[in-house]
């Protein structure tokens, strides 16, 4: 295969995954949340159990007027949704789907790259919050900044633990080094990573920056139409990315029966299982208060992650 064709296939595949997976997760959220609350959820769009609801939503968003507040810093205001969305697209590039190089771009420093790019998210929050010229947005943005900066630490420490265990920063390398007993060995890191990841994508119960009932959607208050849709899309791609990273780092990625042929399926199944848990948490738990949120981060997650690092190092030295 010539280089350019190879490149196009990879990019198209990643963009397709970027557009399809969040919709599947979003639709699953509609339905799962509805049934968990004893409702039916969307039933009409697309004639069969509302499967086309998100497509209809997308069409609606496109039709809406693109409003920017008069006091807003227009350029920053318009740029923020793209900044929110783009890092996730880059992250999807390096997430391996199956064995034998089934990954858009295998990077030796994959884990480092992923964590660095995920950190850009806080920039989008601050940009949209400040540029909106709205008090609610600003409050939401400041909360978001405090939360994202705080939870970055346990996220990185937990990921460092698994990188230390595998002895590599490459994501496919980590999966190859993964053994089932790591599920137990790295369990605290897995939990810390998952919880911190939830906070990183500002999902309930860590949705203090958005907090629609008190901050009217925080930094998204002033957005309408397509730009708002971008923020929503970013949230759902975020779910996919966090689920994928948890899968790759802690759940063994493509490992499973017939991994050689069905590795990609195993990865997808694990990603959707973790996404289901993320949706489940949203339904089951109320929002954490700001002080509870910070307390959980600094007094629980960071110490646990540090302890896990010590444990990982000890086991590595002994073995």
């Amino acid at each position: 295969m010539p280089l350019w064709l190879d490149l196009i296939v990879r990019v198209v595949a990643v963009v397709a995954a970027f557009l399809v997976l969040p919709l599947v997760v979003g639709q699953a959220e509609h339905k799962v949340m509805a049934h968990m609350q004893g409702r039916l959820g969307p039933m009409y769009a697309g004639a069969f159990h509302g499967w086309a609801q998100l497509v209809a939503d997308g069409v609606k968003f496109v039709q809406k007027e693109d409003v920017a507040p008069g006091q807003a810093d227009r350029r920053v205001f318009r740029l923020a949704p793209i900044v929110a969305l783009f890092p996730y697209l880059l992250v999807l590039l390096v997430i391996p789907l199956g064995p034998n190089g089934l990954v858009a771009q295998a990077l030796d420093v994959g884990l480092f790259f992923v964590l660095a790019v995920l950190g850009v998210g806080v920039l989008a929050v601050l940009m949209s919050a400040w540029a909106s010229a709205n008090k609610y947005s600003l409050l939401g943005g400041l909360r978001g900044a405090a939360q994202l900066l705080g939870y970055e630490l346990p996220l990185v420490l937990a990921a460092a633990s698994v990188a230390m265990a595998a002895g590599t920063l490459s994501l496919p390398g980590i999966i190859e080094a993964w053994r089932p007993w790591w599920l137990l060995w790295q369990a605290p890191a897995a939990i810390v990573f998952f919880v911190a990841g939830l906070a990183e994508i500002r999902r309930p119960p860590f949705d203090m920056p958005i907090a629609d009932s008190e901050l009217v959607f925080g930094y998204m208050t002033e957005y309408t139409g397509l730009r708002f849709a971008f923020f929503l899309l970013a949230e759902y791609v975020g779910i996919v990315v966090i689920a994928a990273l948890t899968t790759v780092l802690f759940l063994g990625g493509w490992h499973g029966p017939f991994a050689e042929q069905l590795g990609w399926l195993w990865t997808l199944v694990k990603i959707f299982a973790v996404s289901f848990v993320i949706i489940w948490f949203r339904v089951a738990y109320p929002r954490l208060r700001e002080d509870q949120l910070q307390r959980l981060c600094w007094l629980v997650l960071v110490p646990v992650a540090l302890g896990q690092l010590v444990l990982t190092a000890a086991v590595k030295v002994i073995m």
Partner: protein
Amino acid sequence: MSDDGERGTPGKGLVQGLAVTFKTMTKRSTTQQYPDVEPELPPRSRGVIALTEENCTVCMLCARECPDWCIYIDSHKEEVVVPGAARARQRNVLDRFDIDFSLCMYCGICIEVCPFDALHWTPEFEYAETDVLNLLHDKDRLGEWMRTVPPPPAHDVLGEPSKEEATAARKAAGPGAATAAKTAPPVRRPAPPETER
């Protein structure tokens, strides 16, 4: 995290929360897809009021009892010549019987108070209008609702027989047996057939 008075194992509440939502998800939803599926209304549902015009004697009780005066009645008198009678009799003829459902509060007093069973509840509720003036139902429209009136619920098997039934039984027993029938134990009705709605 500071107000744990008599809390059990840490994390128990978190697991319980997950369990509750998961159990709810596995159960069937009770939602009725209304426009597609007819709702199952309880018996004696109050939807709209139907009128049997023939039963109405223009006694005006309903209009007078109505708490928000939403019943409008007009009538005139007609002379009916009865052959053999000394003079012609008068009877009331109903010209107009309107119920304004934009005012009606569905208290049902008019139906309770009607001595001749001219008014009935029906469970029909789909008569919303885009113009509030169209909620004024005239006597033809109220008469059309009669088709939707469900049969009356069966009598209580253990209850006393109605006055009409007791009188009929007494008459059937003959003039001499009047006192005997009065003192006799009440007639036990056969169990009514199972009527649907």
